């Protein structure tokens, strides 16, 4: 199998890897780099469990070939400071936890862009992250509580 070299910035540090150009960013993070915080829920971009930031925008890492992130900036849930997550705990935003890292990534990104709420509801903005446990109220309440500061996620 032929490999290519891919260099990118991951959670603030430079990474250089030789890998199959078809390898998914999700698998690179999880199986090659041991960053298992990013979860696979569906493998086809429907559930959002594998959400990471690519140059500051949330993407489904199961749909991104790692080859495409060369030269880019990637942040995974491991880059998120635990102190930011108090509202999620208090509001019951996590139950089984399998969707949770993806939910956190999207939620903090919404928090960083309060202008989005002029045109969209939190429920619309969170609709790309499926959760089967909470019924979403805990998540929406947490985003509501955490909002309004415009702080960058990482």
């Amino acid at each position: 199998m032929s490999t290519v070299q891919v260099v990118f910035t991951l959670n603030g540090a430079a990474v250089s890897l030789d890998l199959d150009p078809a390898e998914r960013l999700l698998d690179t993070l999880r199986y090659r780099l041991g960053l298992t915080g990013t979860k696979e829920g569906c493998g086809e971009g429907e559930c959002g469990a594998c959400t990471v930031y690519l140059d500051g925008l949330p993407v489904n890492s199961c749909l991104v070939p790692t080859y495409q992130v060369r030269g880019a900036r990637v942040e995974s849930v491991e880059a998120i400071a635990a102190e930011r997550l108090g509202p999620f705990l208090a509001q019951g935003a996590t139950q089984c936890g399998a969707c949770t890292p993806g939910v956190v990534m999207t939620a903090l990104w919404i928090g960083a862009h309060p202008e989005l709420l002029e045109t969209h509801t939190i429920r619309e903005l969170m609709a790309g992250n499926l959760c089967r446990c909470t019924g979403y109220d805990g998540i929406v309440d947490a985003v509501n509580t955490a909002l309004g500061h415009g702080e960058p996620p990482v």
Partner: protein
Amino acid sequence: MQRREGLAKLTGRERYVDDLPLENFLWGMTVRSPAPRGRITAVRFGKDVDWSEFVIVDHRDIPGPNEILLIERDQPVLAASHVRHVHEAVLLVAHTSREMARRAAQAVEIVVVPEPAALDFRVAPRPEQIQYGADNVLKRLKIEKGDVERALAHAPVVVEGAYETGAQEHVYLETQGMIAWLEEDVLVVKGSMQCPYYVLNALQHALRRDERRVRVIQAPTGGGFGGKEEYPSTIALHAALLALKARRPVKLVYDRSEDMAATTKRHPALVRHRTGLTEDGRLLAQDIEVILDGGAYVTLSPVVLSRGIIHAAGPYACDHVRIAGRAMFSNAVPFGAFRGFGAPQTLFACERHMDVIARTLRMDPVELRRKNLIRDGQRTATGQVIQDGTDRVAVLERALALSTFEEKRRAHTAFNAAQRSKRRGIGLATFYHGAGFTGGGEVHLNSRLRVAGLPDGRIEVLSANIEMGQGTLTVFTQIAAERLGVTPDDVVIGEPDTARVPNSGPTVASRTTMVVGHLIERAVDDLRTRVGLDDRARGSVVKDAIAHWYAAHPGGRLVGEAVYEAPPGISWDEQRYQGDAYGAFAWAAYVAEVEVDLRTCATRVIDFVAVQEVGKVINPTLARGQVQGGVVQGVGWALMEECKFKDGAMVNNQLTNYLIPTSDDVPPIRVAFVENPYPHGAQGAKGLGELPIDGPAPAILNAVAAATGTEPRAIPLTPERLMDLTR
């Protein structure tokens, strides 16, 4: 108390089975049947694969009986000569590369000579389709109270109806997975599961290993909803067989499409009602027939049917009741445990039928329920006297008040008159859910739990009950800490590892908090007695006593224990299906408000109120979350989640075309609890986990009926189905 493992989950530090570090391991893959029924005549290995690189397992590699131990032993671990459903496991392959294993699995051809398959559980099988007993009936059960025929013959009004519910996929966000490895001669299996001892028993049986040579450990589990009750035994056996043959660790983790295609789903059901009433709406007789699609193996269908029929008459008083149920064999993927366990299907029928009755009688559906809700001192269909002091009419009134039911009904009349293409309606359901195993089930389980004192004065709860998101770790901590008067930090919850924890029973049936939590209280009391203290001793007194015990007993181990004891006065007759079906029922009234777009026939739930009486609420945030999640899962089952089957196999086995609700598909779920402590549950709690999925579907369809003037009788009520009714 906040969720104990919550921060680990939020930061992504929690390690699920696919996240666990594993060295020098193989990826397992499963080769499955292409046909719903037939004889295997050949297994062909593709020429383009170097098979010497692979570990391959088939039925001949099974050391013991080729049986997955459950109620019956009809299901093979790996099909040997015949297949009974599409996607039935036939062969296993493993390789260091997941991609190579996947390609190899696709390169195996299972050649099957087809035989006539039974694919519609609603119609009697033709002789050539019979594969179980004389008539493909997996299980028949009957409840009889009074004289239904006579009561129906004399009833002034008789209302009939037939109601259908579809299969539902669990869609736990973490797919099923197991890893297996050998430690010396001990086989260790670790993975996503609800019932470590079910898995242990299945491994011991088919691998012919005694319990000292098998150990099962539950890994943090990303949702279960019943889907990880019985199925994990299968995937654990597959991983174990590969690991035993390879003499290396093996990881078997399904991707979403395999998980949706191969694992169990909620039983499809057809329920018929024939109800006799007085002209003013008092129930005189209920004649109910329940038919479930069991799929290709027995699995848990007999007990799903049992819970289904026991709940089928609804939370009402009626002197003459007959409920006849049967679970049918079909060549579909086996249907299995799913939150609610048969009750959602029969309660959908019952509560939808109540509104059909109300419309027939030109009566207010609220009034019909007020009139018939069971009062203390009255008997259920199984003859159980309800005497718990809960005011069920008050639960209903609370839901009506919170939802402003009457105001909305009036507002909808005006709205619907003014709108061209939008219709609004409001509907309700009153229902109940029995907590714990049915009948003598809890006595039979004989659950055992231990609480160990630790040398530093803390305590460790040793139980086989698992956390899957529902809050076991947190609530167990609260129960133990409260009982001892110590802080949550003084309580450790042991990992569910069959080498360390006793069998406190499966994590199912809304039993964990109520039944197992109560065992924690009693085991804690026992521990306190063993250090010479009585039940009044709390806090540092207890911690000091534990530490002193260890100082006085070097090398000793301080353990308190409790074994299940049935609450006094409970009796159940399994032969006649009469008696106390459950130690306690939770009661509820749910109200749904919907808006239907007559152009697209799409239904949107715009408000939802869930009021329930579940005894004492131990953790309000977790309890509220359980209800909200259950309601939204119920919204999905009611309106959008449709398993499309071809030859008994789910063909829309992707989240692209099997749709579950997103945050934007549901309104805030407004939750309220009425509290009436149950004396035999931990801190007065009753079971809660399953109740919330019983009510949404009938409440929503009743609202659609009110909005559109149609009588929808089948779910999911997709736009296509509603279009058929409105045009």
